[in-house]
């Protein structure tokens, strides 16, 4: 299995997509962090004041903002094999297809963790000096930083798993990527903006991520972090299991 995972990393690193998506994830993180600090104390924003520990946790948690891009990277890693027909060679080398999907799950969960690490570092690099120049003391505390850090890593890794699972389920590259992006950036935002649905929408993947990373949004109820983690793990498990099962029986013609 170690060799299969290493093979997945060799595939991933032998094209440039990971680099562009990492740059995009860092850009998104920087943007969110900047907006959060710039508008934190304006009336009418969703975020808490930056002086509070929860406000500071929410600021650091923008490191998870790249999770849709990790899901895209993972989905392309699976569907690209069908699009470019490299899946034939892949399954010739490893006829037990479930092992291929498991190796991809592991590789893209690790990639997600690496993206999260880079983005968390970027968020901290922007936030800490900026708060210092504004003379805002750090109230978040070590345990708050650690909880946010762990949540960001776990959440982005989970989106890597979801991307692999969905890619293995749908197979079509454009359909998978477009469906994921439309869902995460449009559909979920529309649903969560309807406050009557909030007791339901807190279980959606994006909201579960917000819960897991310890964001606090003034206009939304969120699950406890551990609940958010479980819900996100559940989505990842369903997508991954479906992907493994469907891949095992499909004819490669």
């Amino acid at each position: 299995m170690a060799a299969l995972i290493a093979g997945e990393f060799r595939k991933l690193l032998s094209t440039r997509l990971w680099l562009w998506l990492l740059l995009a994830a860092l850009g998104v993180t920087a943007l969110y962090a900047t907006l959060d600090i710039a508008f934190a104390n304006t009336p009418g924003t969703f975020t808490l004041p930056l002086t509070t520990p929860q406000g500071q946790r929410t600021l650091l948690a923008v490191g998870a903002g790249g999770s849709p891009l990790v899901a895209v990277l993972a989905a392309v890693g699976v569907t690209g094999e069908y699009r470019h027909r490299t899946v034939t060679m892949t399954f010739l080398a490893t006829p037990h297809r479930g092992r291929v999907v498991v190796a991809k799950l592991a590789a893209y969960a690790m990639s997600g963790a690496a993206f999260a690490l880079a983005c968390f570092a970027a968020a901290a690099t922007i936030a800490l000096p900026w708060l210092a120049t504004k003379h805002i003391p750090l109230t978040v505390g070590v345990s708050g930083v650690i909880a946010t850090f762990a949540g960001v890593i776990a959440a982005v890794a989970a989106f890597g798993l979801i991307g692999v699972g969905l890619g293995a389920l749908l197979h079509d590259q454009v359909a998978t990527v477009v469906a994921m992006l439309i869902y995460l950036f449009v559909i979920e935002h529309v649903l969560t903006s309807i406050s009557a649905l909030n007791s339901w929408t807190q279980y959606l993947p994006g909201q579960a991520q917000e819960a897991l990373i310890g964001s606090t949004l003034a206009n939304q109820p969120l699950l406890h972090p551990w609940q958010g983690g479980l819900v996100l793990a559940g989505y990842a498990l369903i997508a991954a299991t479906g992907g493994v099962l469907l891949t095992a029986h499909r004819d490669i013609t």
Partner: protein
Amino acid sequence: MVTTPAAEDAGRIEVRDLCKSFGSVRAVDRLNFTVEPGGVTGFLGPNGAGKTTTLRMLLGLVTPDSGQATIGGCSYRQLRGPNGTVGAALDATGFHPARSGRSHLRVYCTVNRYSLARADEVLDVVGLADAADRAVGGYSLGMRQRLALAAALLGDPQVLILDEPGNGLDPEGIAWLRRLLRDLASAGRTVLVSSHVLFEVQQLVDRVVIIHNGQCVREGSLADLVDVDGPVVTVRTSQVDDLRTALLRSGIPDGRIGQPGSGRLSIIGADPEQVGRLAHAEHIPVFWLATEDSDLEQAFFALTSQPDKRTTAVPSGR
């Protein structure tokens, strides 16, 4: 190369009663054949005969409806480290366009725990060393064929399965491929090469398996196909089915009767006099009867040309 009986068995390809349908199309229909090590076997048939589907079932990529396809007595999925036992080049399209030839091969070196230097060795063998660092998207079809072959050779396998490897190769490339496959076969390996163009593999193969409509119509040495079959007799008649029945009754095997067009029958290795007398005895009108010296292409064409369903609608001339 050790050629103990065990090694011979390890390289034998056996296809038994293999069936596969896609929707209502019967792609492979109770197919049987065997491929022995130590030679190059041509797997021939027109486009749509079921060659690629058969190879993909042999390699565990497509699940048969029934029957078995085994390599050394094992199904592909039972093989341990399959790349080290069977090397396959199925199409010249299975590459990521942005990946270099070397990177492509190194992926499978890593997966199989081969040394990365093995990628450069096989690139040398197929003559792609100079293009190793270029993105495959810029390769010609011939270069992609060579890269697919390089990937098949990566594990130094006992069995080599190549689907239409001559596509996109220039005559020089074909000559090179012939030498390479000869060397591999003479070292005791099993080499199976599919093609829809007999001309392309005529110089390449020792034995042939010819399939048509998913069934084996001919299995034997290339020499048998050329020499023993004698002339091809082609008859034009209004009662194709009746003549076919009469020929079968007279002892000519089905595999030697082909239908090259509407209202025509071709019989390989037949005596023209016998065919004429038979038609006369059965009161079957014959409008035209011709004898041609059989060459390989004609024999192949006669065996694999599509029966034309419209012939059954021709009114009987009796």
